[in-house]
């Protein structure tokens, strides 16, 4: 243990990153120490995979002089991460990759006193998409058949999703209230687990992101019926959008990088530039198309305007479902 103590200290330091020392204000910002890269979800989920991919691109292409160190703060649907960001002692070296809980968690927990408009709009890397999936043995090939079946089975039709009041829950609520369905919603811990439950026919359907269901889609076990997007996805050219099927609804998951409240403009500009390079890299573009992600790069005031619309929209959605008043 004596021999290894020194190594341990190095490891611990790498893992924790010093939170002290404020860099002197410089004209053009350059990070002066490792960058705290917060992930508002647990290890292995969609956000986590994406964050680690971004890290690998930054590392491989040598985009940053200082390392980017991912830290998972998954507690309380992102509440832990949001508060960590709010109270960051060095906002210029603290960035976070977000999910839609970036919008919903502050709305559901006003006690956190988090205002997302105070975060620095570094860059939106993509919008993840949602599709409606069933098992191939269900014998359903179209959205109309789905509605018919789901209606006749009432609450025996089980939809699985990631957590309560999550993106999946919002889409399920929409389907239930707009198509007169009574599908039961069962919350699970992660999107991968949900896809597995459908593949094992433990539940009847899901609204997984393509990246979560891809393995089972390629093996033919899961069939996508409808996409909750505005246009058909290039990867699933035969799958109609809900709009084509007559519904007026689309829903996306924001995959963005934000800076801690109080980040200087110089630092925000530096990170926007950094993540623009990540976005333009071949590896990111390849990931984006292979996992069927949409959305162009967006930063600055455009991104803030986007947050504002999303926040208003989620306020309405959560009010309608009774999650907030």
């Amino acid at each position: 243990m004596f021999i290894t103590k020194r190594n341990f200290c190095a490891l611990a330091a790498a893992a924790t990153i010093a939170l002290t020392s404020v860099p002197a204000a410089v004209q053009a910002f350059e990070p002066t120490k490792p960058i705290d890269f917060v992930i508002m979800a647990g290890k292995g989920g969609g956000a986590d995979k994406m964050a680690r991919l971004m890290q690998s691109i930054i590392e491989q292409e040598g985009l940053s002089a200082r390392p980017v160190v991912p830290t998972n703060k998954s507690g309380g649907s992102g509440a832990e991460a949001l508060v960590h960001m709010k109270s960051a002692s060095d906002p210029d070296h603290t960035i976070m990759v977000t999910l839609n809980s970036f919008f919903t968690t502050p709305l559901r927990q006003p006690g956190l006193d988090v205002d997302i408009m105070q975060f620095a709009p570094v860059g939106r890397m993509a919008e993840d998409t949602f599709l409606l999936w069933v098992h191939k043995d269900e014998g359903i090939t179209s959205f109309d058949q789905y509605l018919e079946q789901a209606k006749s089975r009432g609450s025996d039709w089980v939809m699985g999703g990631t957590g309560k009041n999550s993106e999946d829950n919002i889409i399920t609520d929409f389907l239930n209230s707009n198509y007169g369905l009574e599908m039961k919603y069962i919350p699970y811990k992660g999107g991968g687990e949900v896809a597995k439950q459908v593949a094992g026919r433990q539940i009847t359907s899901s609204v997984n992101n393509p990246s979560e269901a891809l393995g089972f889609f390629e093996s033919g076990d899961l069939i996508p019926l409808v996409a909750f997007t505005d246009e058909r996805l290039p990867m699933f050219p035969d799958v109609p959008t809900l709009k084509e099927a007559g519904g007026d609804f689309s829903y996306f998951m924001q995959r963005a990088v934000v800076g801690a409240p109080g980040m200087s403009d110089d630092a925000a500009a530096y990170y926007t530039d950094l993540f623009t390079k990540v976005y333009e890299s071949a590896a990111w573009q390849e990931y984006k198309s292979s996992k069927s992600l949409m959305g162009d790069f967006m930063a600055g005031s455009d991104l803030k305007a986007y947050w504002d619309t999303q926040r208003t929209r989620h306020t309405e959605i959560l009010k309608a479902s009774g999650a907030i008043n």
Partner: protein
Amino acid sequence: MEVLVALSDGILVALEPLNLGLAVLGVIVGLFVGAMPGLGSVNGVAILLPFTFVIQSMTGSATSPMIFLAAIYYGAMYGGAISSITLGIPGASTAVATTFDGRPLALKGQADRALVTAAVASFVGGTISTMLFTGFAPMLASVALDFGDPEIFALMLLAFATFVGLGGDDIPKTIFSICIGLVLATVGFDIVSGEPRLIFFDSVNWFSRGIQFLVLAIGVYGIGEMLWTINSSRYGTTMTNVDVSFSRIMAALRSFPEAWKGTTIGSLLGFFVGILPAAGATPGSLMSYGVTKMVSRDPKQFGQGSIDGIAAPEAANNSASTGAMLPMMTLGIPGSPTTAVLLAGMVIWGLQPGPLLFSEQPDFVWPLIGSFYISNIVAVLVNLACIPLFLWMLRMPFTILAPLIFVLSLIGTYAAYQNPYDVWLMVLVGIAAFFLRLLDYPLAPAVLAIVLGPIAEPKLRQSLLFSDGDFSIFFTRPIAGPITVIALILIFLPLLKLIRDKIRGRRAA
């Protein structure tokens, strides 16, 4: 036959100098992170993930980076036992069960035997599970799919039953201990309702994050154990003298077959629990310990330094880690926190885990499986070679060891989640554990409950959501039914025994 050809090709690739080198390096790194309290395989793998990007750009394939990370994963399973045995602090959550008997055996002056048993049991567990993996991966993937929520809950119930149904221990105190663990496990955000529970403070740094298992484990076994040793001073001011000699280690190796029961149970049960998504190596090792104790002819030996009690959790945690690779590769879902990071790695390297991985990426899959065999051999050799070094630690007098344990507990807790509140909580837990132990409460059941509670509870509620609150769902399903019935019998067995003894006693009178 086809499998054997693919496997031997895979082993040849795994034996290429670079891959072999990476396996050795990975095992050593893993041994180290596993042995450090607080750092487990998950930290090791996450910290070194960026390094694999370099390996990948060097070799152009995903195989070598994965061999490296898998070797860390295995190495950590071996390493966890080291501090569990020599210091009494679990090196990783997967090695908690190893402290139950490993520490007492070390205090009896047989640390060498404990370490050798742990290493060899790990090797056997790792190798048996790799063979099962090689032969039956696709079939086992479909078993994992058949395990829905009620099945997993039934299995968790069975795990609890193995701890309650043990003769010997004080049953009411065992149940009380389980309940404490279950209450602590409910703290934090509930995924089914999305509401916070028992968080008391508004600050997210405290309880809204939930109470992390490792914080409790280090508190109970680090601080609690240290206080206990100080209090009892049974062992005097110096630690037990340990002779280090080649012949003693050889003798320990020769006596390993005595642990056949624990090793077998650990290898098989650990693998099975490992392939079920949601579980992982920690529940696997705890359950194996419980089952081995239950079927043992001499359950009173457990907790006093039983060889089976060391072999079972150590065989199981290695076996379960191989098992957890299965749902990760074939279903794309992680069976443990470490495989969650490996999964992220696979995606970054451009692989799509799923049912087609085996048929579409044989160049990735088979060398990896080959490396499982190699890494296990490397790990057991490195481990055995280092045993004299580990034993040297035990020669330190307790006056030096106690502060060392204290500091390692503090650092380990902080390193695990980087939250200073956890450190306070860990100290409080340690003090509480000490008093519970003074009052003769068994603490292992509480630790088990904290691990299994967060798995069992959502599964119970998801099942009941399915059945609209009807408990018969646990009895009517073909797989869940028998497991539930066995679990209930085990839970009520002590009660039946008690009644039987009463009746006999009356007849005799």
